[in-house]
C-alpha cells in the first residue's frame, strides 16, 4: 500500500510503500531504499520501532491541527495520507499552502488588540491580532501578503483554541 508523507516545511509529499511482514513487522520502501521495520504500537500514541537493531522510541502527539512526531528529542511535524485522500485533499487545498489563509487562535485566550480592519491590504509578516494567554501577549502575523476579507476577531472577547480570527486572501 502506498502512503504519502509530507514533512513540515517541505512542499511535496513523498511516497512510501508499506507491506505487512509478520507480527508488528513491516516492509517499507522509501526513496529507493527498503527497510524491514519492527514497530510495536504502545498505548498513548507511542511506537517502539526497531530498524536493523537500532531502537527508536517514537512518540506521536496531535495538537490542534498537527501531528508531532518525537524521536530522541527531535520533533518533526508530519502529515500522512493514502492515495485516495491525497487526491481529496489536493482538491480541497488541504495539502496546499496557497489560496485563502485562515488565521485562527493558536490557544485559548483573550483578544486584546485587533491591528487591522476589514478590507486592509496586509504584508506577509504583518501583525493582525494580539491574543493574551497565561499572562503573555502574542501577536499573530499574516502568513502572506493579501487583503483582510473576514475579521471575526473582536477586542476584549475570549476565544477558544482554533477560533477563526482573520481571513487573508
Amino acid at each position, binding site marked *: 500500500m502506498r502512503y504519502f508523507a509530507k514533512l513540515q516545511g517541505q512542499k511535496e509529499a513523498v511516497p512510501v510503500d508499506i507491506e505487512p511482514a509478520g507480527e508488528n513487522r513491516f516492509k517499507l520502501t*522509501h526513496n529507493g531504499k527498503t527497510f524491514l521495520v519492527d514497530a510495536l504500537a504502545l498505548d498513548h500514541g507511542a511506537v517502539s520501532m526497531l530498524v536493523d537493531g537500532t531502537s527508536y522510541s517514537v512518540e506521536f*502527539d496531535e495538537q490542534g491541527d498537527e501531528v508531532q*512526531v518525537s524521536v530522541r528529542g*527531535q520533533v518533526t511535524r508530519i502529515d500522512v495520507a493514502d492515495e485516495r485522500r491525497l487526491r481529496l485533499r489536493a482538491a480541497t487545498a488541504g495539502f496546499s499552502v496557497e489560496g485563502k489563509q485562515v488565521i485562527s487562535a493558536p490557544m485559548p485566550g483573550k483578544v486584546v488588540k485587533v491591528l487591522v480592519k476589514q478590507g486592509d491590504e496586509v504584508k506577509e509578516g504583518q501583525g493582525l491580532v494580539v491574543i493574551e494567554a497565561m499572562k*503573555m501577549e502574542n501577536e499573530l502575523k499574516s502568513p502572506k501578503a493579501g487583503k483582510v476579507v473576514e475579521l471575526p476577531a473582536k477586542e476584549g472577547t475570549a476565544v477558544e483554541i482554533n477560533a477563526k480570527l482573520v481571513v487573508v486572501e
Partner: protein
Amino acid sequence: MAKIRKILVANRGEIAVRVMRTCKELGIATVAVYSEADRSALHVRTADQAFLVGPPPSRESYLVQERILEAAKKAGADAIHPGYGFLSENASFVRACEKAGITFIGPPASAMDAMGEKTRARQNMIKAGVPVVPGTAEPIATVEEARAYAEKIGVPVMLKAAGGGGGKGMRKVERMEDFESSWRAAKSEAMNAFGNDAVYIEKYLEKPHHVEIQVFADQYGNTIHLNERECSAQRRHQKVVEETPSPILTPELRAKMGEVAVKAAKAVGYVGAGTVEFLVDVHRNFYFLEMNTRLQVEHPVTEWVTGLDLVAWQIKVAEGEKLPYTEAPTPNGHSIEVRVYAEDPARNFMPSPGRINYLRVPGGPYLRDDSGVFPGYTVPNTYDPMISKLSVWAPTRREAIERAKRALAEYVVKGITTNVRYLKGILSHPEFVEGDYDTSFLTREHETLLGKGEDPQLTEASLLASVVYAYQRDQKKAKTLTQAPSEGGKGGISAWRLASRRGR
C-alpha cells in the same frame, strides 16, 4: 515559640504543592485556596482542606487579602505561607495577617516596606553602603519625565516595576522610538501582576550576569547567606535556567557578595528566606538590583548543594527557632534547574495551555521534578505557563549538565507544547557549557537554541514510523468499519487525524 499546626498556602501550582510536601513531612496540616479556574488543580488535591476564593483572574481571587484570611479563619490555620508571586511581597497583607493573629511565614512588614518598593530599596541600600545600579531614586510620575530621564542617562535603559519582581513589568528600551510603548507595556504588566503600576528607570549594564545570594535570618538577628545562584539565562527578564555555584564566581567574590547580601538583609531587619539579586558586570563589579523578600522559584538548586529544606527552615524560623548554622555551608557539588513551560519556543514562545494527555517525568539518580500538574490535568490559560521545575545534582558542573540533558530527554508531555527541547538546546550550547553566559545569551543565540538542525537519520525514522502508525490505524479502522458500517459516515475526516484521536 509556638509550634505551627496548620498552614494555609496562599498560592497555586508547583510552589503550593512543594510547600505542602514539606508540611506533610513535618506533620503540619495544609489548607489550599483556589480560584474557579483551579478547582481541578493539584494543590487542591494535595491539601487537607481547600477553599474557593474567587473567579479566575488573580486580582479577584489569589490577590484578595480578605478572602485568603477568611479561608484561613474558616480552616483554623495558624500560619500562612505565601509562596512566591501573588501576596508574597505585599506588606499590607503581612499587617493584615498580624492583625488577624495569623503567623505570616516571611519577613516582617517593615522589612518588606524597606525592600518591596524597588525605589525605596535602592535608597535604603545606598544608605547601607551597598552598591546599586545607577538610575532614578523614585518611581516616575509621567511618561514625559521618564522620557527626559532616559534621554539624559542614554539608552539602553531598563524600565522596572517598583512593586514586584519575577520579570513582570520590566522592559529594556534600546531606542528612544520604542520608549513610549515600552513604558505603557511595563506599567500595564506591573498593574496586572502587582496591583501597582509604579515604574522607575535604571541604566542598562552591558553583558551583565544576574547573580543572586540566598540569605536567611532568624528572629534574633542571626543572618547568614547560603551562597549564590547564577540566573543569567533569562528571556524577557524571566529566568529559564539557574545553577549554583555560579561558574563566574571566585571564592573571594562569593565571600564578598555574600557579605554585602547579609549587610543588606541586616539593614532592613530581615527575617526568614530572602534573596539579594545583583548584576555582575564584565569587570566583576557587582551592583544591588533588588531584594526578593520571599522564597525564589529556583531555591531547589540551593537545597541540592546544601542539603537543606528551605521551606522547613522558613517554618522553623517563623516558629521562633534559631538558625542551626552561623555561616554559609560550603557548597557541595553542582546543581542546575530548568523551568518547564507550557509554551512553544518555535512560535515566539506562544503559551500552550490545554489538556495534558500523557506525562512521563524523568527518573533515576540525583534529579528532582517539582511539578504542579498531572496526567489528565488541563493547564488553564489564566496563570503563569510554568508547569514544572526539573533540577539535578552532580559532583561537577560538567556532569550536572549531562545529567540535566539526560533527564530532559526522558521528559514526555503530550497534549500541550513545552519548551523541553529548547531547554536541551540551552544546556548543549557552547556558551552555556563554557560557563560565561550573560543575560543577553538567550536572546542573542535564539536561532541556535531552537536547534533547527535536523538529524536525517531521525527524520527518516520519524517518517517511517508515521507511515506505520497511519497504516496500523487505517487497518484497525477498516476492521471497525466492517463491524459497524454506520461509522462510514465519518469518511470525511482524514484517517490520520481520526486515528491519532483514537490513539489517545
